[in-house]
């Protein structure tokens, strides 16, 4: 990995990465699974696997799976955030059993909301 030699280089790198992310966001469905200790313990990994399989089975191939840390909704683990191209991200909680597949077959495939949407009650600092 090339070393970053100055603040300017770091800013350039950030801009490049943001550009890639913006492009992805417009083109792909981004599925972000909460995989901190709590998420993993409540089955987050299985959820991700199930969604991958379901997407493959349904022939949906514009889905990018990512992981993140704690989404802070302990009461609703496992939690998954789905961002449809060009849309605001939506967080789904209580993803147990067939719910994972349902997210793919309903929300990702046709934008049809399923139960367990967790409204965002926060403002997030970005810079």
């Amino acid at each position, binding site marked *: 990995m090339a070393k970053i030699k*100055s603040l300017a280089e770091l800013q350039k790198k950030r801009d490049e990465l943001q550009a890639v992310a913006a492009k992805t966001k417009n083109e792909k469905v981004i599925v972000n699974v909460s995989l901190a*200790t709590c998420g993993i313990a409540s089955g987050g990994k299985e959820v991700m696997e199930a969604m991958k399989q379901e997407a493959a089975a349904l022939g949906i191939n514009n889905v990018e799976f990512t992981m*993140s840390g704690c*989404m802070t909704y*302990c009461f609703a683990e496992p939690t998954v955030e789905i961002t449809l191209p060009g849309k605001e991200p939506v967080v789904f909680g209580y993803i147990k059993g067939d719910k994972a597949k349902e997210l793919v077959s309903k929300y990702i495939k046709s934008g049809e909301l399923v139960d367990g949407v967790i409204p965002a009650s926060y403002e997030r600092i*970005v810079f």
Partner: protein
Amino acid sequence: MVDKNQLRIATRNTGFIDPESVESYIAVGGYQALGKCLAEMKPADVIDLMKNSGLRGRGGAGFPTGVKWGFAAKYASDTKYVVCNADEGDPGAFMDRAVLEGDPHNVLEAMAIGGYAIGGNKGTIYIRAEYPLAIARLKLAIQQAKDMGLLGDNIMGTDFSFDIELKYGAGAFVCGEETALIASMEGNRGEPYTKPPFPAEAGYWDKPTIVNNVETLANIPAIIMKGADWFSGIGTETSKGTKVFCICGKINNVGLIEVPMGTSLKTVIYDVGGGIPDGKEFKAVQTGGPSGGALTYKDLDAPIDYENLVARQSMMGSGGMIVMDEDDCMVAVAKFFLDFTMDETCGKCTPCRIGSKRIYEILDKITIGQGTEADLEKLRSLSHNIKDTALCGLGQTMPNPVLSTMRVFEDEYRAHVIDKKCPAGVCADLLEFTVVEEKCVGCTLCARVCPVNCISGKPKEVHVIDQAACIKCGACLDKCKFDAIIKQ
């Protein structure tokens, strides 16, 4: 549309970025703050900015971070240390883990900023070994940052070098106390020593050392980027910024929240936390961990900040919040917390080592119906003297659960010692299960489930519980379909 009660600064990235990817962090502005410090600010400027921001330690004591850094910067030394206190030990608190697992680079960046500010180039994260995933992600993050020249020698092409290593704690609660933590890092028994000298003067290996909690650090890059005025514009007069809490217990939305300082308890419990399950009444919330205190319905409108909590015999602590409802007995709750601190005291000073045991014993006596009114006085006096004489923060705060519950729920204590009753129906030895004659239809179900066969009565006739034989298991009460058995 839900009100945006929460403001996420320390937890701004957890749940949003991939903690195992440095690019993911850079994409959200990661390491920009460090770069800005190195390129545009002198160490003294960084310290001034921190002082002006009003950021105070999130580990619990609330010492101003910039002031602490200023002390460490003042002492000349060839080596200085930045220690990240990741020894999260409060039961029911996991905000540090969430940050470390979800946004490890944030903490690394903040430590490097601290190192730059105080003139140190060694960082250590003291993390409990029970956090394997956090450890793995931190290790990965350190390696990635080094590979990219964001940690290690000559960071971003400057003269500044900063290295971070991990040290593992074995899960001793007292090791969250900074002097005990340092003792443990040096390979000694984890127990506190008397300050001064403060670690900022003589800490890790007797070198100037700043010890900052994970959440404190997690705020720092944002403060650098957005400025002191922005940060000090959030919160109350004395407590700036936000605070992360872990709400658990009798609450609907168990989880991690981050709210501006000054948010009322009511907002936290009812709006963010979603209220109490099963329509029960809110009774109290324990803040500040096992050595904090209980806030009650009387405190619901109080804005949460450092001073307000202390004024109510509790404390900020690291941010655990355990919510209790009408079914919780406050004496039993106090006993529960004392049971914890009694086991976790390092045993160094007399008041904490023996005093915690004695408080626990008195509480135990009360919960089994053997307490006297004199015991209440003893509890109070012993608690005050322990607070006054104990060596470290653990001992000085250990009686808080007793004092704060006695403050508001003295009636409940008195009911235990005078009436020998537990109003919340928790203390088994004080309970009596009785049959309400008017309601009993003589179905015999209760008699059949009683494990000790202490319920007698013929079918279709009123049943009677033999109090002497009853073991208060509650099986009869659960089984009765006619609400004919009550406990009191």
